[in-house]
């Protein structure tokens, strides 16, 4: 009957045991020897049939009573206690729990048992970690932006001084600094845009060689300033490929940028180069390849380099370039392969089907 306070038949049939089993948390009741007297369905599902076992064995796989034990504290002071515990589920997964321990009193007011109720907060912890990481990453981005603003600021000063003295060579050098830093800010802004929102891929037939030639052209000056040889090769037999040209230019820009930075960081070789190639990967796929002889990447870091905001280049990397490149290539149904050797250099190969599906 709507609005009535009567408990429904379904709930009555379920009984308290059934209701407790439905609780979306772990619930167990321990006796003074810490043995489990009762456990709800969720507990049994994740920790196994543990009634009769000591709780420390069931929750933590330990035969010792835990050092700081909320259940024991509730036995001692008849109060509710809260703590965070790390436990191991029966499938081996390690979980962080928020645990409430509540004393169950007998008629005389003595603690007969303690009820332990806990919630798995692994997802919250993961989110917390991601938020912390995001905060740190934004701080790094801000550091990079300030460096570039400093470049624009300083370059403007040099232009002014050059103009004041009629020294065109000085003004022109200042202008180069301003242009370079505007380019870098624009690059970061583009990567932030690509990484933060879903962008529809608009494919049309384009020549990979043309993309490579254009993008390499954009980096000629930067490479020359950094004293790095930048060259490209393309296989003239490669037919036009159905691609989102703007996105693929971004991929190549990020890979070339990455290669130049990797070279800049290397202090051991006398000369550095970044070589860009496009051609056939096999009969069905084309490839874009960027090879550098920079610092290379350690094997254990290879899996991380495509993660958002991960940078192996300290403050010289925003951690967005490879993430964005990988995202775009995946959107095209392709993949990026990496070959890297610490101290020797890296090769990033973008592999795409020559006949791209119409996206």
């Amino acid at each position, binding site marked *: 009957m709507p609005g009535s306070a009567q408990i429904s038949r379904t709930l009555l049939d379920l009984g308290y045991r059934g209701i407790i089993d439905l609780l979306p948390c772990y619930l167990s009741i321990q006796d003074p020897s810490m043995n489990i007297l009762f456990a709800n369905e969720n507990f049994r599902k994740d920790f196994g049939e543990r009634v009769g076992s000591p709780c420390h064995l069931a929750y933590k796989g330990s035969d010792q009573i835990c050092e700081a034990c909320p259940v024991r504290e509730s036995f001692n002071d008849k109060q509710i206690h809260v703590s965070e515990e790390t436990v191991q589920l029966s499938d081996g997964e390690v979980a962080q729990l928020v645990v409430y321990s509540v004393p169950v009193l007998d008629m005389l007011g003595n603690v007969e048992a303690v009820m332990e109720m806990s919630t798995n907060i692994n997802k919250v912890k993961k989110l917390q970690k991601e938020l912390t990481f995001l905060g740190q990453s934004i*701080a790094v981005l*801000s550091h*990079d932006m*300030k*460096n570039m603003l*400093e*470049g624009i600021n300083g370059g403007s*000063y040099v232009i002014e001084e050059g103009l004041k003295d009629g020294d065109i060579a000085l003004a022109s050098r200042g202008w180069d*600094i301003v242009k370079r830093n505007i380019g870098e800010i624009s690059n970061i802004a583009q990567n932030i845009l690509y990484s933060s929102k879903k962008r529809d891929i608009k494919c049309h037939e384009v020549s990979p060689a043309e993309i490579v030639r254009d993008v390499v052209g954009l980096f000629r000056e930067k490479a020359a300033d950094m004293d790095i040889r930048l060259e490209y090769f393309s296989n003239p037999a490669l037919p036009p490929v159905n691609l989102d040209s703007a996105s693929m230019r971004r991929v190549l820009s990020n890979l070339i940028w990455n290669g130049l930075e990797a070279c800049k960081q290397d202090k051991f070789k006398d000369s550095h180069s970044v070589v860009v190639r496009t051609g056939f990967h096999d009969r069905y796929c084309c490839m874009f390849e960027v090879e550098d002889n920079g610092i290379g990447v350690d094997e254990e870091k290879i899996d991380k380099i495509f993660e958002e905001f991960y940078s192996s280049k300290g403050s010289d990397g925003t951690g967005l370039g490879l993430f964005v490149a990988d995202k775009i290539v995946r959107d095209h149904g392709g993949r990026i392969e990496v070959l890297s050797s610490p101290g020797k250099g890296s090769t990033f190969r973008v592999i795409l089907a020559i006949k791209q599906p119409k996206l």
Partner: protein
Amino acid sequence: MEKTAKIVIVDDNHDLLFTMETFLTRNGFEVQTADDGQKGFDLIKAVHPDLVLLDIMMETTYSGLDVCKAIRSDPGLKGIPIIGISGIGDEMGIQIDKWGDDDYFSVDEFFEKPVDREKLLERIRIRLKKGVIKRGHPNL
């Protein structure tokens, strides 16, 4: 004739090195530059400058903090005023001006990029005044 003050700039960013060198030279200082920590410290040892302008967060093998520590640990160099420059600030949770006087890593003053050039010039001139080499007095 008054002696020209010598300043060494250490920064791995070539744009900053050039623009800051231009700025300080045009304001009457004798400037020398180094683009990594090791070269920077070698230069400081060789020329014994009157002041060092140091990028704190250089990503070179020998970082800005290493240079700072090396200067502070060297009895012949430890009195040289160091002005730290970096793009880091409160958002990185680092407050360089709060570092203690006895801390080896401590710079005398800190400027966040983009640097206010006029303010920097004013602070350099104050730091270079005869006798004002005592560290840890940002309001001097």
